[in-house]
């Protein structure tokens, strides 16, 4: 694994360039913020891109209501410290309005329900560009995603008809009603993000570091014991030292056993890890093409 971090400077320069293209090419951009490490990295990059001016777009969080409380506290603190505008839209409201139906059973999650809430919010605010923290190394379908990825009126991704992206040139021309998903850290790997967090000394939610948590085991994954996560009676609650490598909501994010309590040990652990990051994403395990299907429907 590459221990030289000079390549991260080139990734940072590329991401800053993309942030500035968004601000210049679109009327109403928004940064989709989940409270996870990737979106926290995006905020840092945006701060750097526009200094000494403030970030010229708001943040938006699609709240499933099943988030880790640590993530929400962290989100509110970050927004306050940086003086940013935060928009929150709740999946619970979409359920109450009958726009989506809650899943039930053993693997129920609100993860895929976020899509409707997100698309409704894009329409409500007339956002024409949504900046997200997806990375191409995360997952096979994401490896083909463009940096500027056009979505139609229905928020859908037409993966077979994507615009070619050449050199540094980003074509943000769209029709009214369409929007572009923008991925400034497309070319970063998980290790790059962690190395950057270490290098820049970026604060992240405590759940990324080893802590004692009530968990249970199912299908070889470590699930959080919580009122939001379905648990069989014979699935025994254990108390273990764990941390999270990726943070979605509680129902779709599995933990890893870990003693890494600070950023240096986390970076070390990722460097030596033999399991991919999304190996702990329960939502990807549904089928071989799980991510591609969700993306076509407008998932982030």
């Amino acid at each position, binding site marked *: *694994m*590459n221990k*030289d971090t000079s390549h991260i400077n080139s990734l*940072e*320069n590329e991401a800053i360039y993309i942030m500035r293209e968004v601000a210049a090419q679109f009327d109403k951009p928004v940064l989709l913020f989940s409270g996870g490490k990737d979106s926290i990295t995006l905020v840092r990059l945006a701060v750097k891109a526009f*200094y*000494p001016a403030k970030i010229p777009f708001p943040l938006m969080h699609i709240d499933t209501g099943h988030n880790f409380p640590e993530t929400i506290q962290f989100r509110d603190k970050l927004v306050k410290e940086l003086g940013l505008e935060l928009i929150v839209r709740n999946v619970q409201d979409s359920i109450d309005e009958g726009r989506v139906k809650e899943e039930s059973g053993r693997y129920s999650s609100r993860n895929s329900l976020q899509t409707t809430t997100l698309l409704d919010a894009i329409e409500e605010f007339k956002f024409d560009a949504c900046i997200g923290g997806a990375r191409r190394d995360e997952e096979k379908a994401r490896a083909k995603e463009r940096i500027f990825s056009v979505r139609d009126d229905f928020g859908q991704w037409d993966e077979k008809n994507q615009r070619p992206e050449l050199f540094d040139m980003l074509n943000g021309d769209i029709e009214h009603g369409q929007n572009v998903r923008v991925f400034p850290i497309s*070319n970063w790997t998980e290790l790059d993000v962690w190395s950057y967090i270490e290098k820049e000394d970026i604060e992240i939610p405590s759940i990324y570091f080893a802590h004692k948590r009530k968990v249970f085991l199912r299908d070889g994954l470590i699930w959080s014991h919580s009122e939001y996560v379905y648990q069989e009676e014979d699935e025994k609650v254990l108390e273990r030292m764990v941390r999270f490598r990726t943070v979605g909501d509680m129902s779709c994010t599995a933990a890893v056993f870990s003693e890494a309590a600070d950023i240096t040990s986390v970076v070390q652990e990722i460097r030596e890890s033999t399991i991919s990051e999304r190996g702990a994403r329960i939502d990807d395990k549904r089928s071989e093409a799980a991510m591609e299907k969700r993306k076509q429907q407008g998932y982030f």
Partner: protein
Amino acid sequence: MEVLKIATAGSVDDGKSTLIGRILYDTKSLTTDKLEAIEKTSKQKGYDYLDFSLATDGLVAEREQGITIDVAHIYFSTAKKSYIIADTPGHVEYTRNMVTGASTSQASVILIDARKGVIEQTNRHFFINNLLRIKDIVVAINKMDLVDYSEDIYNKIKADFESLMSKRDYQDQKITFIPVSALKGDNVVNRSDKMPWYTGQSLLEHLEALDKKDVYNVGTPRFPVQYVIRPKTEEFHDFRGYAGKVYGGELSVGDDIVVLPSQTKSKIKEIYFYNEKYQTASRRSSVTITLENDINVSRGDMIVKEGDLPTIDKQFTANICWMDATRLTTSGKYIVQHGVNKVLAKVDKIHYKINPDYSGIETDVTGLNVNDIAQVTFKLNKPIFYDQFKNHRTNGSFILIDSQTNNTVGAGFIQ
């Protein structure tokens, strides 16, 4: 070293996906869960070896058809370097994908099946890599295990390829031949003991040794202004910064500069990267520049050093690759996006179509179909500030946008 981006071109039959899978496997870049998935699927399909192509062919349609239809990006790193592979399909109908993949890459790997030798597709890959002026190319002669690791076959293919090299436009391109077996792992990451007659580096060793000077041309600095930063806060009341990326060379505080198109002169006062001031902005850094004089600069303008001006003109001739299903026609109107600058353009003349297999040109052309490469003159509604592609990869390239569909429909390299 920056991240090294490598374009791979070749059809699935050449074993390109297997080669990439082999690199990932031998550099221990495949994680246990991905490896398990590959083992499971390979077994289901009844193969007696691991099908590494499963690691790269991401889309459902590709898994169904068993071919690569788009540019996929694959990431791996060694103790020395981080790499991105832009994996593109090799079929003629995907010429545009090859151009796209090569445009963001600094080095390229061309695969040849040792049993088939140099074929039309090889010519095309080489032509595109030469057109895009990739400085370093590896010709990997694959499936050596299927030809008994024969030195004669290797030499024959090498000689055939070398006969193409005299036809190329960009003669300074460095070309290295390596005999490999992606399936068996010979000379991919580790050197092979099956080919004692080959004493050169393995493919990865070659890539590991590449330095900035091997992949980048040093040109003259160009600073296209992306965005004007005006904080309007008390602390930065009069701050007016020009945000952009420096291409081709360096810019330093105190440099005498000219702003295009107004040709107003000034001096660089400060260079910011976030909240720190620097004396010099290095190539490809995203900085914010302030000038000594309060002059009017906006997005699409370009800051260059005095005495080092690009060509300022309302027309240019370029080699273009047409990428859209709708034909390009003489007198057709498009948007030229040159860096961050957009202007209206009209096709003035299609000089000729270039057969991308070095077999010659076709004149008397009235239109271009998808994947055609041609020399075209455009007239613009206002001047742009360009360099020839051979002197400046960034300031000599552009994309074409269809103003009806907003799609990117072509890419060009200014002559």
